């Protein structure tokens, strides 16, 4: 299969869905002529025109709200927000409007609204441009939370997002845009709530999403050299969460490491851990390990930035702990 970049896969999804449905449109800062800061929307203006591909002023609350309103009126907007950090300006529209509308209206009102944005550390862009904020959206009933780690998932999930009827927080990662992977051409749909086993293994389950998936895969490769076969499970969507696949993996390996880039406190990892202990306590042979960001704002300095979010070695150490392997035993090996 051909290999394309994550950002190209996203573009392909938008392009195909705009082609397919004239109600799909996209607005954002610098997304039209300029093609977006991450080049996801390059070429769309030329192909679909200024009516359906629009630049906005710097007005996040307004543009998110306008997107939500257009969705309520039956269109299928994509609102691109440059950084998830900036989505905080539009939280009323996300939390109090988009997420609530269906229930408040007794089920008649639907909000097929997609907010595409990106988060994550590692770019040297400091505390206001590096956050991983999925837990905020995860906490709000009524929102779908999507975090693709691979180009094929990015395409399939975005296409699905544009065909369903609930507000979607589509959270990309700034470090994934240039990563390459096999992506099917044409119709390729990934439904929400279907986890993907990125690497099968029998010894320990590593649950990770977004940019923590490639990190978990690197850790798994290193663990394999020690004879440890880690299974890497990517939920792909945090809401809805595919607990079935997660629990089945836990039942096979009996040991769990959950990796999230976001800060530890109040995170999604803690919630997944609580689900596992509630549903599969007697399958566990070791305490669930959580590897997460520190409970701090992201610093600018490169080494300190690295120290603030999980690295490959943190995942490896957590897997060994889950397997009751003493650090000394590794050293002796």
């Amino acid at each position: 299969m051909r290999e394309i970049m994550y950002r190209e896969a996203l573009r392909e999804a938008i392009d195909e869905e705009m082609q397919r449905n004239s109600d799909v449109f996209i607005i954002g800062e610098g997304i039209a002529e300029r093609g977006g800061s991450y080049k996801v929307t390059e070429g769309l203006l030329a192909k679909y025109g200024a009516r359906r591909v629009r630049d906005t002023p710097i007005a996040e609350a307004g543009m998110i709200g306008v997107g939500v309103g257009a969705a309520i009126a039956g269109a299928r907007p994509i609102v691109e927000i440059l950084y998830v950090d900036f989505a905080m300006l539009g939280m009323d529209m996300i939390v109090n409007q988009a997420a609530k509308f269906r229930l408040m209206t007794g089920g008649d009102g639907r909000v097929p609204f997609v907010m595409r944005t990106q988060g994550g550390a590692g770019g040297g862009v400091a505390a206001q441009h590096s956050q991983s904020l999925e837990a905020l959206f995860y906490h709000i009933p009524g929102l779908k939370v999507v975090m693709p780690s691979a180009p094929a998932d990015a395409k399939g999930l975005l296409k699905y997002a544009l065909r369903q009827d609930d507000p979607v927080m589509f959270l990309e990662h700034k470090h994934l845009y240039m990563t390459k992977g096999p992506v099917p051409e044409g119709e390729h749909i990934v439904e929400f709530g279907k986890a993907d086993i990125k690497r099968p293994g029998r010894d320990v389950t590593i649950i990770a999403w977004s940019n923590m998936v490639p990190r978990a895969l690197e850790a798994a490769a290193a663990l394999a050299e020690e004879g440890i076969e880690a299974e890497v499970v990517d939920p792909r969507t945090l809401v809805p969460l595919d607990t079935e696949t997660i629990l089945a993996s836990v039942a096979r390996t009996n040991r769990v490491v959950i990796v999230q880039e976001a800060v530890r406190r109040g995170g999604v990892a803690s919630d997944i851990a609580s689900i596992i202990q509630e549903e599969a306590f007697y399958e566990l042979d070791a305490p669930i390990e959580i590897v997460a960001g520190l409970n701090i704002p992201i610093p600018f300095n490169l080494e300190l930035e690295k120290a603030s979010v999980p690295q490959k070695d943190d995942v490896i150490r957590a897997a060994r702990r889950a397997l009751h392997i003493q650090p000394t035993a590794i050293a002796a090996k």
Partner: protein
Amino acid sequence: MDEAVKRNAPSREFLEKIFRTAYRIRVFETEGIKLYRQGLIRGYFHPYLGQEGIATGVCAALREGDYIASTHRGHGHCIAWGADVKRMVAELLQKETGYCRGYGGSMHIADIGKGNLGANGIVGAGTPLGVGAALAAQIRGSDAVTVTFTTDGASNNGTFLESLNLAAIWNLNFILVIENNQYAVSTPIEEATRDADLYKRGLSIGVESHQVDGNDPLAVYHLTREAVETCRAGKGPVLIEAKTFRHMGHHVNDPGKYMPEERLAYYKARDPIDRARAALVEMSGVDKADIDAIEAEIAAEFAEAVDFAKESREVTAAEFRQFVAAY
């Protein structure tokens, strides 16, 4: 009365429609407050008493296929838009036959299929939502117009400028109606801004803007009609500031002691219902017996709606669990 309105020689049918709408809102609010006092309605109830002329005049200038977005004080907008009073009362009484099956209540009545994007519990939220509906219409190549009813309180919220500006740069068919009732809960507009002539906010970003006596339903109607024509000609958006005053506090349980009596008396002497009734009598020769008959009919319609709501059932917890299973 406005000379231009007289010259336009509106038909009896039209004047009667205006009076009926305004009076229907008055009855809904007056009788609704009684139901609230009886303990039949829970939560918040923000009466539209005194402001009926605005929803009445604005909605009369719109047509099927257009959209409205409303405020927390939304009963009047729904009624003027043609909502079924039965389903509205049922919603207030948290019944399954209500517009929101009893999940929304007073602040969330909506009828998406008919273009009512809903009341809203967050002050100012209807503005971006309305601009969004106008954007959706433009993208679909429709000439539908969207009206957002907003408030003087909301005019100091950031989304007011952000979304009106988006409507302006995109020439959307959008009309923003500021119902300036001069109080944000208990804070007078003079304390919340240096210039209380709120229509000027639109001028600052290149939006055609007007001020109108919100207690004069016909003046509101004529101004809105012009605004609608401006929009359908592709020259939107338009901002309308309609000055008015509440007849009581912010909600049913707010005595509104902060509202100066002389100002209240001034506006009550210019009551929108009285003016709609006078217009009907003076311009079409309807007599007192006809008026009495219309008023009795509307009162009976409300009583019927109360019976309907009382007889309706509530959604059960089991049904609700089924509804929310997808969350």
